[in-house]
């Protein structure tokens, strides 16, 4: 079925097609439409799920933990302040190995009050152990929810599907909504081998000393690493079944590129015509959009970026006192490579400041002009 839907509704459709059994959510701008549509889907009987209308995001995640521990496929969605409020229980969901899928709409953190897009909310949660997918189209949002469950349920780790506020959450695009039977074939019913089961009573999460805690963390890391291959496989398989393949990254005119932009989310879509323009002007420009940020696709980026003349990264997030996260991590991935290219780190679009073609082009031209980057942060278009 073809349908024009907004980004937020793509999350709801993704949860519906994945046959989420429990949804627990609390409203926050710009996420509200996700849960409103899900409420309606449940009320109309289109989605056979228990909907827990909790009193906070902290409880949204805690309720999701309980439901997931009981063996149910569980979905929630939030944004910014709500995600930050969940912080403690985000760690809990990972440590308890619960394959919850959550949509997070990237909104800048207050104060001052703001509702516009920025990735610092989800970037702040990168060390909670949640796997993170950064999307760049409405179709990808819906498809990513379905793929997220497929990965989460194999590694028993939670997955966050991330989208830009307004630029994606409130933009309408034509979407292919696949048949339920096809999605069921791709994503069968899940039986959690470690669920709370009265036939096999066990305690989960009890006091663990230094003799075992370390090993439990090692296992999380190993399964997180394994999820990298699973994201690739499931993305490929998704392509075979639905005609839309997905990878860890998406590239554009990369093959012979000498100067490569690494970025994420909607900025990557805007960057494509910039690449075209630059190529017309004689610059061999290319693009890498990082889609899966946790686990970080270090090996793949090393393969794609080493030997290039220049790499620039645009971050719509900031780790104060350091730089943008995508820049920081891409640079770290390439540090030990002999042919690592020089790397420029640009900050743009914080708090929803528009990042149009001109701004992206400016970052390229700055990078072309210089031989070597000075410092780790270049602010584009800041009013000083």
């Amino acid at each position, binding site marked *: 079925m073809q349908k024009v839907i907004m980004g937020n509704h793509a999350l709801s459709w993704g949860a519906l097609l994945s046959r989420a059994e*429990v949804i627990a959510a609390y409203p926050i701008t710009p996420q509200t439409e996700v849960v409103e549509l899900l409420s309606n889907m449940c009320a109309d009987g289109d989605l056979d799920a228990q909907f827990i209308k909790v009193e906070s995001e902290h409880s949204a995640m*805690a309720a999701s933990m309980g*439901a997931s521990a*009981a063996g149910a496929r569980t979905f929630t969605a939030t944004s910014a302040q709500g995600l930050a409020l969940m912080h403690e229980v985000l760690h809990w969901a990972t440590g308890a190995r619960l394959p919850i899928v959550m949509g997070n709409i990237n909104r800048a953190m207050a104060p001052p009050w703001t509702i516009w897009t920025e990735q610092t909310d989800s970037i702040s949660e990168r060390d909670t152990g949640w796997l993170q997918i950064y999307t760049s189209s409405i179709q990808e949002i819906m498809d990513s929810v379905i793929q997220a469950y497929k990965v989460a349920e194999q590694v028993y780790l939670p997955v966050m599907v991330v989208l830009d506020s307004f630029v994606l959450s409130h933009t309408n695009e034509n979407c292919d909504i696949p048949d339920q039977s096809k999605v069921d074939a791709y994503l069968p019913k899940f039986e959690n081998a470690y669920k709370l089961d009265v036939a096999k009573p066990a305690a989960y999460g009890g006091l663990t000393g230094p003799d075992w805690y370390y090993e439990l963390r090692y296992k999380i890391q190993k399964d997180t690493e394994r999820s990298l291959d699973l994201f690739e496989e499931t993305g490929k398989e998704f392509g075979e079944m639905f005609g839309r393949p997905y990878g860890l990254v998406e590239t554009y005119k990369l093959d012979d590129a000498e100067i490569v932009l690494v970025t994420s989310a909607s900025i990557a879509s805007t960057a494509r015509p910039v690449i075209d323009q630059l190529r017309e002007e004689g610059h061999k420009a290319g693009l890498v959009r990082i889609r899966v940020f946790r686990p970080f696709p270090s090996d793949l980026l090393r393969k794609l970026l080493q030997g290039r003349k220049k790499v620039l990264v645009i971050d719509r997030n900031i780790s104060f006192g350091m730089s943008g996260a995508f820049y920081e991590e891409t640079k770290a991935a390439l540090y030990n490579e002999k042919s690592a290219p020089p790397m420029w780190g640009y900050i743009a679009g914080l708090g929803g400041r528009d990042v149009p073609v001109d701004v992206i082009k400016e970052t390229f031209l700055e990078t072309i002009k210089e031989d070597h980057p000075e410092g780790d942060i270049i602010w584009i278009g800041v009013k000083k």
Partner: protein
Amino acid sequence: MKYTIPAEEVMCSGHKACQGCGAALAMRYALKALGPRTIMTFPACCWSVIDGPFPYSAVGVPLFHTAFETAAVVASGIRAGLDARGEEDINVVAWAGDGGTFDIGIQALSGTTERNDNIIYVCYDNEAYMNTGVQRSSATPWGAVTSTTPARHFKQERKKDMMAILAAHSIPYTASASVAYPEDFVKKLNYAKSIKGTKFLHILASCPPGWRSAPELAVQLARLAVQTHVFPLYEIHEGRYFRMSMNPKKKPITEYLKPQGRFRHLTEEQVADMDRMVDERYEYLLEQAERSKPYFEDKKGN
């Protein structure tokens, strides 16, 4: 003599409770009433330690350890997960201390109760943060010494009336209980099991290290708390109708206070003040019970 408490033990030996722990007794009786088709969740509390370190567990039922402020809502989530899978006959129990109930967990508990999610919430109340070394909570009674309310500046505030707060949510059933009256406790749990919605049980659990009392007095002190009217046993049905579970002739409050080091500093005047507060509260409950009589006459039986 006919015993109403099931002989079956669900809880195992080998738990890590202190000697004379009321919370351990409370769990033993609770599981007798609840039976093995029960799933529990514990927030941070004494029971997160009592149950035993990984990979051991003493409760004998599936248990999800959770964050301090989330017991009620994790139980809501488990309930929803089970219902989604058609396992509606399993009891879901949030089992939390007074800190996790009266203080840090009150928001999630209020949410669960307002939605009337079908769970049993048991607060075992030892009247302070015993697990972290006896710091005051809002369940600590007026006059008590804790590690954050020293004798020279003992707890100046009255114990929060958690039952009233729960009742204000029109909760179908809330009841107080005591480890000294296990038959009453088991009866209340059986009633809680038999009805849908959120059920809240508030059980006083004596704590020898925290109360600075002898372990062998644990049950006796819990009984004296009831007999001196300090911790009355009563029920509130549908958030409005009160019923006293027993109405014992009041013993002097000093019988309860004297064996406990946490009240040793109180002067005679201060004890009299405390006694007045206890009487005030008790009279209020009796009035409510009197007002509620027609409701229980109509109800017949329960």
